[in-house]
């Protein structure tokens, strides 16, 4: 049953990625011929957005100007691809309407213009919900409670979800409210250059009152649409594979610490370890293809490990800024990073320890092998001749407390966002 489920997932991943596989292969063929060396120009930079961002200032919403505001739902569906869920309404924030029943604004004006959008927790539930027909990568807005005590602490919680409902982005913005501000001082943004968010929720909590969700206003909602082509050459190369990753051309290595004399002292023999051969031509093709797609890893800690690495490193393109830390040695590395508030690890190695399984064990039968534990879910795979494992860590290291951490599709989505990074040592094609 475990094998059947794994196959199903691989097939669905392949089906999802198949048009891109063709594109990536085509790109690889053209670039390999023209550029024989690894491209030294590959740097760590944010990917470019595929479209210009759009801003919604709520100024052109039509409707009767009542104290409850104008209900907001699909007024921006055609122009911006966004629908608002229950509880959202547009309010006037100009002084001329300073009758308390006519406005929810706690400042004498909107963040811009005369109108802002409010969310009522009684009619709409705790969070304002925005659903996008075209996925967005980054969402930003001004946010403001409808009132408060001077200096009172609030936290704005923004969450982003992909098309299958998996949380992929999270931001908490803490601030203290003051009435002595000319305009709205607080901004909040969510997402990353490569994120694909189909739903965004916004919640404002009152810290002093048990973190209770309260009514709030937003304005100047800024949308950056997700790039059309979201699948990296790495994911395409993984999706192409049919059977289990076979070991080719690996050479036996002797560990520094296992000399013949030490070996003679052992009760059990030291395991054989092999160093694999890296397909540097394929790595170079991937580097060129991802450069054309403006795809790059987010900045990371651990540059010296990358510089010394003699294998291609796979790293995320959409990790939260500052969240990626790499450790390693020339043949292996481990990166930890966060996406959407969830922590992942990515391990890679070109050193293989040879293990004989007992006759009743199944061994490895698929291109991607999923393994779940109480603490995490791991996908093991091979690409470019090295072995890798991508792990999603469960909150509090407990799948019982955090069942979503075993979602294989969510892990596959992270794998779909990996890029190749090659350091100084790797450029010599060791």
């Amino acid at each position, binding site marked *: 049953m475990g094998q059947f489920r794994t196959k199903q997932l691989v097939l669905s991943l392949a089906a999802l990625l198949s048009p891109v596989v063709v594109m990536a292969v085509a790109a690889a063929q053209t670039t390999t011929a023209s550029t024989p060396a690894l491209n030294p120009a590959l740097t760590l930079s944010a990917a470019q957005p595929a479209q210009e961002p759009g801003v919604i200032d709520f100024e052109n919403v039509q409707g009767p100007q009542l104290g409850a505001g104008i209900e907001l739902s699909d007024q921006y569906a055609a122009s911006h691809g966004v629908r608002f869920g229950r509880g959202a309404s547009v309010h006037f924030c100009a002084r001329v309407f300073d009758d308390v029943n006519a406005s929810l604004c706690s400042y004498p004006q909107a963040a811009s213009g005369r109108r802002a959008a409010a969310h009522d927790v009684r009619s709409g539930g705790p969070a304002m919900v925005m659903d996008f027909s075209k996925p967005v990568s980054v969402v930003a807005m001004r946010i403001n409670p409808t009132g408060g005590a001077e200096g009172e602490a609030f936290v704005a919680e923004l969450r982003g979800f992909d098309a299958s409902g998996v949380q992929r982005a999270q931001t908490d913005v803490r601030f203290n409210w003051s009435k002595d501000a000319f305009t709205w001082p607080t901004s909040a943004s969510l997402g990353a250059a490569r994120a694909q968010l189909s739903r965004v929720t916004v919640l404002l909590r009152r810290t002093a009152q048990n973190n209770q969700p309260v009514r709030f206003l937003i304005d100047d909602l800024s949308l950056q649409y997700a790039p059309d082509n979201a699948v990296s050459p790495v994911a395409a190369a993984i999706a192409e594979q049919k059977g289990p990753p076979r070991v080719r051309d690996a050479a036996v290595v002797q560990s520094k610490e296992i000399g013949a004399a030490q070996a003679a002292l052992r009760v059990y023999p030291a*395991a054989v370890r092999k160093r694999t051969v890296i397909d540097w031509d394929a790595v170079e093709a991937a580097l060129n293809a991802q450069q054309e797609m403006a795809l790059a890893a987010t900045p990371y800690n651990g540059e010296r490990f990358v510089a010394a690495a003699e294998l291609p490193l796979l790293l995320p393109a959409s990790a939260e800024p500052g969240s990626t830390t790499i450790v390693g040695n020339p043949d292996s590395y481990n990166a930890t990073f966060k996406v959407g508030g969830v922590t992942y690890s990515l391990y890679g190695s070109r050193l293989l320890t040879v293990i004989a399984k007992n006759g009743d064990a199944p061994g490895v039968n698929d291109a991607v092998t999923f393994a779940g534990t109480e*603490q995490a879910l791991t996908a093991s795979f091979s690409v470019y001749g090295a072995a890798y494992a991508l792990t999603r860590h469960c909150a509090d290291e407990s799948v019982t407390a955090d069942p979503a951490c075993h979602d294989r599709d969510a892990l596959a989505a992270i794998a779909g966002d990996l890029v190749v990074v090659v350091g100084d040592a790797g450029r010599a094609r060791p």
Partner: protein
Amino acid sequence: MSQLLARFDKNWIGVAAIAFMLAACADDAGVTPDPDPDPDPDPVVVDPALPADWQNPPGDLLAGSSTTHGSTGVTDASVVAPFMRFPFEEGPAFANSQIFGQGGGGYGGGAWPAPGGSENDAANFDYAWRDNFCEARTNPAKHTNALCDGGLGHNGQDIRPATCENAVHWLVAPEDGHISWVGSISVNVFGAESGYIYKHLHMQTPLPGWVEVGAPVTKGQRIARVSDRLSSSSRATTVHLHFEIHGSAEIDGVMRTGPLPPYSSLVEAYMDLVADNPDQIDPVAPPADITKCTEPQWP
């Protein structure tokens, strides 16, 4: 311990092996060899030593305790981490099953019955060691293991410290390297020599502030204390270390990254520990009061 038990000393075996090799060389050359020009200045440690039957062989699980009710784990005795230091600062230590040990809960709703007794029974803190990599687990979502019977099983080796006392015994880094993960009950170390990830579960929290991802560690450096924690809010397991060695492997000509069988590496590392600390071999009498096992109280 007992004088009735035959003594075992791996240094003695090593000397015998080298002597044999020298003799073989002499035969080939047809001459009498020169005396060793650079004799080993360190005297061979002969005593004290571990009892001859101190460890069951790798892959020899408790009878009927594999997922298919067999008793076979990974019988390949290869030492995957010969450069490893034993993960406890001090001995003695006892590698054995938790759920099928005294006081353990059994498994599978009676399919593998609980053995009775209590956690601090002397039997749990005595030799012989027992491999429990691939021990019975039946949830495919939580215990996939390509190396085990039925494709399911325990991913590591469980080891009890000298006593059942909670949050007393130190876990130390098995290799020079860097901290690669800190969870609510776990600390992982990336080994700079091996490239493996050493995974340690059921650690006391909160961990010391200097144990953080990316921080360098040296072999033998203290990194956490061994406890009975199952999560940040649960102390439902026994006081033990769940130890895993993660790395990439070739299994039947196929690459796979995941837990490697750690038992024989632990055997070698433990012999190194007791060779350096011959006074840390003998089991300690268990505390009369069972509450000793669960102190200090939460948190």
